[in-house]
């Protein structure tokens, strides 16, 4: 009999290799998402029974400015980070591409902060931004710019920018490294042709390299967007979402509802909102950036 079984299983045996991974992904991604959808229609508090309350959690989300505000904060933060990280990374990569002697050294230096954890970066930068004992204000007054000194994280108008700057500092080396791969993939005869035609360094960048870097833009923008939309640790450590909820991101709101007030049902509804936002943004970006690549 085992032989007969062997003959039946033979053609599909190779696919059984995917079963362990599928079990893990099924149990810890697919099932949790379904459970999250289910919980989002309940008033579950972590203990006892979960009562179905229909769309009440979603109505609560839509009717309180606090939650819509946290979506706004998340999107504004993501926009700031993606724009500045991409631009600064591009400038570094364009310069380093022309400077082979220092390229690897500078790439490694720029990459260093990405080795550190959000917790430590958050702590150190919180102290750098501190009003009286912090490094930034002390530095500003040392170079005669005292008038710019302020409580960076205590002021609702600067707090989000300050955290975005920290995030960009952490990951700009990543963006630079990806752009450098893009530069390296540009066929050298194209660059050579540009040089023979007497194109200046800027003209080569603008008319030859920039269009050919489209795939690197796609990778960088999608990676940094997906990485930034879920921002939690930096505001959690640096501001706790304050001042005046100016840095209260959606993930911070999820964790606060979960472990601050045990609103498991509502936290699940917020998670589903987050999933929808991430999926929507990813689809729009993918379509737009791929089309942009094809047009180049």
């Amino acid at each position: 009999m085992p032989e007969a079984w062997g003959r039946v299983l033979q053609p599909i045996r190779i696919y059984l290799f995917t079963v362990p991974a599928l079990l893990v992904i099924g149990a810890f991604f697919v099932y949790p998402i379904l459970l999250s959808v289910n919980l989002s229609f309940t008033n579950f508090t972590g203990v006892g029974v979960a009562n179905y309350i229909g769309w009440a959690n979603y109505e609560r989300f839509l009717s309180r400015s606090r939650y819509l505000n946290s979506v706004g904060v998340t999107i504004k933060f993501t926009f700031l980070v993606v724009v500045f990280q991409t631009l600064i990374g591009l400038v570094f990569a364009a310069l380093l591409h022309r400077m082979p002697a220092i390229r690897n050294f500078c790439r490694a230096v720029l990459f260093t902060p990405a080795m550190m954890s959000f917790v430590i970066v958050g702590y150190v930068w919180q102290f750098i931004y501190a009003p009286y004992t912090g490094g930034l204000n002390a530095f500003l007054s040392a170079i005669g710019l005292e008038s710019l000194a302020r409580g960076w994280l205590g002021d609702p108008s600067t707090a989000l920018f300050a955290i975005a700057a920290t995030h960009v500092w952490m990951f700009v080396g990543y963006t630079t490294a990806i752009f450098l791969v893009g530069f390296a993939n540009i066929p050298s005869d194209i660059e050579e042709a540009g040089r023979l035609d007497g194109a200046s360094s800027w003209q080569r960048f603008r008319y030859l390299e920039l269009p050919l870097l489209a795939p690197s833009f796609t990778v960088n923008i999608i990676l940094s967007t997906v990485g930034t939309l879920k921002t939690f640790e930096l505001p959690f450590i640096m501001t706790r979402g304050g001042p005046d909820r100016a840095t209260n991101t959606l993930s911070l709101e999820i964790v606060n509802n979960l472990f601050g007030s045990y609103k498991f049902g509502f936290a699940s509804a917020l998670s589903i909102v987050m999933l929808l936002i991430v999926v929507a943004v990813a689809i729009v970006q993918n379509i737009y950036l791929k089309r942009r690549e094809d047009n180049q």
Partner: protein
Amino acid sequence: MRPMIRRVVSIFGQASVVVVTLAMLAPVFYMIMMSFRTSAEIAEEPLAMPQALYLGNYANALENMNYWQGVLNSLGITLTVTVLVALLGSMAAYPLARRTNRFTRGVILIVALGLATPPFVTITPIYVIFRNLGLLDSYPGIVIAFTALNLPLAVFFYTSFISAIPKELEEAARLDNCGDWQVYWYIVRPLLGPATATLSLFVTLMVWNDFTYPLLLLSSPEKFTVMISVYRFVGNLNIQPDMLFPAAVLGSAPLLVLFMIFQRRIVSGVTAGAVK
């Protein structure tokens, strides 16, 4: 004369880029310098250099933050997760790289779903599931959570790696009557070293630096990873610089040292993982 001028300009340009790049390290330098100063010194002169090699902050941090226990925990979790992710990921990748049909396309779709889902979407249900299974505050629990988080990336990573391996070796083995498992175990798996090396860098970075999962899933101090030890030691209110900076240095030192040694490999590995 002109080439001479051009060379001077080029050297000047490169020097300025190096200076700007090194300025990006100022916060890291600041963190190390401040860790040798007392709170009173920092309050008085926020930017001064340390007066002497004062190690009191470190003595206090090492004594009170449970550092070595945290290092051991992070190491143990990293190793276990790396082995699990490498095994499950490469096994699943083998058929995905060698066959294309409705089934493999469906599996790739499910893996992509795992890759795209932000951890915050699944954190509530995972907490509930872990509590029901008794996995909260346990090593198996945190190992499973990290394995699940890293697995989708591993599957993609190995799939593209195996696709690039020529099939001839496997076909020869099949003629010798090797089954699928034997082909995978004796032919494919031994070739995966470079991919596994890069993957283990990802896992190390994630396990060492991740904050959210261990914060929510672990509650007894003897099980904390390094980052949770740092967080519990420094706290969240009334933060003291003489605790913050030494803990920050101790928390990031192992990965920074690792980075100095394997800098080229880490940058190209992480970048390759992103570009693929």
